[in-house]
């Protein structure tokens, strides 16, 4: 649960190291945030008591739709950005693809029980599908099992997947890039930011 705040912190550190300013994040305009918030709401629905009696196909459809929405949001936000920011989102997208493949193949993210033990987690963490109802135990013969949650991180009491780690790298790069912002006029035209009006011009 601390992985995202840690990624954010690393991104801000990297941005400062690259000469950026945290204040520049205020100029970052991410398009259609409602898509990703809706996807999050869809996954949260899976934790409702009523979802426990949902047929496996319905559950799978919700998970697949939420992942599709996350992918659509990424696709929508990459074009017409600065190269470093677009690169960060593209790497995040690779992590998304890796996670989506294994989730769709197994109707949920398979979690290695031995990795959970190594990370100091009890099996209760995965009961009911885990924090957002999308985890399943990793059993022998799981498709693309190596892409599942198999990497224990005892320091954070967590088990992560290869896709999660790739997403962390992408988010760190995207935050750092957004802090550095456009540096030249030509770059500003393709920047991660909305164009700003010249001084003295009001709309």
């Amino acid at each position, binding site marked *: 649960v601390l992985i*995202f705040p840690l990624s954010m912190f690393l991104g801000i550190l990297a941005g400062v190291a690259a000469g950026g300013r945290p204040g520049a994040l205020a100029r970052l305009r991410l398009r259609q945030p409602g898509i990703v918030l809706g996807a*999050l709401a869809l996954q949260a629905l899976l934790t409702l008591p009523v979802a426990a009696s949902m047929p496996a196909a319905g559950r799978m459809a919700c998970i697949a739709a939420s992942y599709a929405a996350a992918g659509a949001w990424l696709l929508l936000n990459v074009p017409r950005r600065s190269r470093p920011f677009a690169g960060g989102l593209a790497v995040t997208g690779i992590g998304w693809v890796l996670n989506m493949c294994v989730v769709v193949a197994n109707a949920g993210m398979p979690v290695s029980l031995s990795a959970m033990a190594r990370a100091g987690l009890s099996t209760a963490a995965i009961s009911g599908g885990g924090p957002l109802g999308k985890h399943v135990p990793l059993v022998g013969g799981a498709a693309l099992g190596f892409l599942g949650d198999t990497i224990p991180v005892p320091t954070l009491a967590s088990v992560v997947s290869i896709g999660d780690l790739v997403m962390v790298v992408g988010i760190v790069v995207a935050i750092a890039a957004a802090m550095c912002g456009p540096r030249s006029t030509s770059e500003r035209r393709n920047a991660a930011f909305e164009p700003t009006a010249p001084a003295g011009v009001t709309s």
Partner: protein
Amino acid sequence: MIRKLVSSRVVRTVAALATLAALWLVAAAPIYQGPRIHW
């Protein structure tokens, strides 16, 4: 007042980071023993 709040730098920064956090929650799938949604 609301327009001023929405346009404040702090709110814009938090909104951008919250959107990335939501993306992380949807697309990443680490398992942890921490807080979870209870209804």
